């Protein structure tokens, strides 16, 4: 299972990459693998305010729908439209294909999230 250094990870298997006041959010390789073939992605609306733990979007495999939670608080400033017609991209390259970009709130904290090493361990323990 691929885990990239430099990203932060949630217990729900989302990743975030913070650049200044912006955060890219996606699902991890572990998440796409356990979901199986992804056939549908529901994206958040632009301008939507999200608190940490709110539902940011939905990813559906053939079998089931899974919520994607926002690991941080912020406002949706961009969404990855390409996923609408090609949801399988989340299977193919889950770290390149972010789902949304959030404009972080001032109070945004990422200390509750794991770094790559911690997340690798977390996945092992879960299995």
């Amino acid at each position, binding site marked *: 299972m691929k885990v990239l250094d430099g990203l932060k990870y949630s217990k729900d298997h989302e990743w975030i990459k913070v650049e200044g006041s912006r955060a890219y959010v996606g699902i991890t390789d572990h998440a796409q693998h356990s979901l*199986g*073939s992804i*056939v*549908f992605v*529901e994206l958040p609306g632009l301008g939507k305010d999200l608190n940490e733990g709110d539902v940011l979007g*939905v990813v*559906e*495999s*053939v*079998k*089931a*729908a899974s919520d994607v939670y926002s690991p941080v608080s912020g406002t949706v400033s961009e969404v990855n439209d390409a996923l*609408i017609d090609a949801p399988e991209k989340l299977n193919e390259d889950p770290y390149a294909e972010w789902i949304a970009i959030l404009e972080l709130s001032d109070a945004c904290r990422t200390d509750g999230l794991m770094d790559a090493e911690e997340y690798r361990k977390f996945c092992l323990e879960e299995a």
Partner: protein
Amino acid sequence: MEAALKRTPLYEIHRSLGGKLIDFGGWELPVQYSGILEEHQQVRSAAGLFDVSHMGEITVKGRDAEKFLQKLITNDISHTKDFQVMYSPVCYSDGGIVDDLLVYKYNSGNYLLVVNAANTDKDFTWMLQNLEDEVELENVSAAYAQIAIQGPKAEAVLQKLTDFQLDKIRFYHFIPDVVIAGVNTITSRTGYTGEDGFEIYLPAKYAVLVWEKLMEAGKEDGLAPAGLGARDTLRFEAALPLYGHEISEDISPLEAGLGKFVKLDKKEFIGKKALANQKEKGIPRKLAGFEMLDRGIPRSHYDVQADGASIGFVTTGSYSPTLAKNIGLALLDSAFAAEGTVIDIIIRGRALKGKVSTIPFYSKKYKK
């Protein structure tokens, strides 16, 4: 503490193939190996191998066997020939469905019933409660493994392992002693995928041997193991009902579109009065297929509405790998079940549009 999951004789094979094992009605079975989409396509284009050993088998023997079955099932077994297979619902007296099953007729005093795994004990109890004088029932589920080989290449692959001329087995017929890879089996031209194919019943201890021989024989033709996930999407596209979804104790076979398996002109059977009454008064709900117009995937139990009022619910919904569309089956108030009717499917609180379409979504490729 939860009871331990039951395992089929092919459990170790599933593990070695990297199958993703899940709890399916108390059985530890693979939902997928390589992936549901690939396995689904493989069955539609070549052939897939399924472990369906969890299915229940019950023998019905004795002088009154036919009389007993005629009372038990809604279909009419009396015209069935020896070595023919018949599909039928089994109903409660109120018309709700106990289970749906296959009846394998050896002769009028000897039958093999194949029932849904999770319903086996319930069915057996129900049969005992409705037993006729000279009938012997036996739950022989544990003795049998069942392997299904399905797809356009199924016959060619299976033929490599048997001297029996498989083209002599017609659709919904069986042969009780087809020797496959040296093992005596009951083989029928039946299945649950909408493709041509066979279901093979064999002694549990030879399941691994036959599975491995089949995989080997099917290499060139693209035979691949297929899990319960693909089995579900395949049967769903062919609009074959699944107990607990399209049919249940709260749904009658007439509502589920299984009217041709309900013979109201038959003398007496459990549920006849209620079903005849339903037919006379007009069937209140109807199973319909629909296709999403808006973006979204319908799922089991989602509410279906018209003008903000509930008119039914989704029984099965999925992305259809063959059609590359999001489709569903729903039990709807009959007034809304006509083809072309636009309905609202409530997905995560939002009303998304769908349109009632014809079923099956996939036209079955049976070899009759």
